[in-house]
């Protein structure tokens, strides 16, 4: 299925270069300030179409995760989770490992160039 091939891959439009390297490109509403990822064409809060590129925080905490054992990917098992970024956005992402995971642990977003876009996941930094 297509989704299995795109998991962990970011199109170039979802990435922005910030002060300290590559960041997820969110959208900040110029009218009400709401922050969203991926960057929307219209603010769901105030309907403004004036949305500025916003580099999202490079780290946050792991809200919840699951290790997946099924599907068509060749690299089973793998782990996915929700990361609560420091700027208030929650991002669904793959995790770099399947062991030693715990909700509320600190994680760092990792983005690296790959063919036609970027590789994207979150790496545990330390348990809290």
């Amino acid at each position, binding site marked *: *299925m297509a*989704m299995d091939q*795109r998991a962990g891959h970011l199109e170039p439009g979802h990435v922005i270069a910030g002060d300290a390297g590559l960041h997820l490109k969110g959208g900040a509403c110029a009218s009400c300030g709401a922050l969203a990822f991926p960057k929307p064409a219209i603010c769901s809060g105030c309907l403004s179409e004036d949305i500025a590129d916003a580099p999202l925080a490079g780290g946050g905490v792991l809200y919840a*995760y699951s290790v*997946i054992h*099924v599907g068509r990917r060749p690299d089973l098992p793998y782990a996915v989770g929700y990361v609560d970024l420091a700027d208030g*956005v929650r991002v669904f992402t793959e995790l770099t490992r399947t062991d030693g995971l715990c909700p509320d642990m600190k994680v760092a977003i990792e983005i690296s160039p790959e063919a036609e876009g970027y590789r994207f996941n979150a790496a545990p930094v330390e348990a809290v």
Partner: protein
Amino acid sequence: MRPVSIIGVGMIPFGKYPGKDTADLAWPAIKQAMEDAGTDRDDIGIAYCGSVYGGMMIGQRTLTRLGMTGKPIINVENACSSSSSAFHQAHMAVASGAYDVALVFGVDKLSQFGGGTIPLVDEDWEISQGMLMPALYAMRACRYMHETGLTTEQLAGVSVKARAMGAHNPDAQFQKEISLEEVMNARPIADPFTLLHCCPTGDGAAAAVICAGDVAHKFEAAPIKILASDLCTGTYLTGYRDMTVPEITVRGASEAYEEAGVGPEDIDVAEIHDAFTIAELLYYEAFGFCGRGEAIRLLEDGVTSIGGAKPVNPSGGLLSKGHPVGATGIAQITEITRQLRGSCGARQVEGARTGLAHATGGGAMGMDHGACSIHILQR
């Protein structure tokens, strides 16, 4: 708006029917519901069909087989809430006075996909990143276990209870009890879920005939009253969300209780959306059957088993009866109707007077769920 009653229900046993078209699954359930109601084809003023994977015009393709054409037929897709949403629409059509009698049915054939997780819409960013329904529920379980101390073994007990109930339901996909060890030792799917924490994929159909309350007695001596018919959508959030409190169901429950004029203490039997084990526990709390963190006590004390004070999913629920997504909502309403009539045999909840059916689902980024439909019924 005027009172509306259920006068007939029907369903086919859930399972796998590889040789049948989706429409061929649906017509026997409709015929059964029509016979149960004592309605002729000409009595039906409008028909609604809920289905996710039945394809374009599944309602029309089904009803042509029964010669029921010419009148309005409306197809409703709302993920796992498709036929409960269709039921909500049918209820509005009759309650408004526009029609006296409506047919509503749900059907899906998941065996067409050959097993595995159900296909989702890749345009959703999270789904494009590999979100699967088991992963979504597994993360809810992960967080709930982290916050409350619930163990994997305790969670597995939900499946054991569901299969024990389904063992007495001739319409259930699984009619055999299972042990805690079997649940724990089944192959892993999405931690903490093994295969037996997940509802099966399968095929099925269910149907109901509803009627204006003041003419229901023409067809049925003991119509079942629809006290509440609620449908709501999840609230969209771009930021943090508490996955251990299903806001869409909490809100829907509150609306449904208010519409019905009853509270959680009045519910004698409930069919709730246990697509995965954790869901059953989250929904005990969402419906106010217990307080936060107390759901496992209800399960382990037998409160939600047959013979307990608050039996939940006597049909076996999605975990045992099966979950052909578009058929689920009406199948739940069929079970509650039969429970209130006292016709459920070994799985009968004695003296049940008021019951609740709850179908919610649809993975959509930024929402707890895409849709949730709750019905409260009374004899």
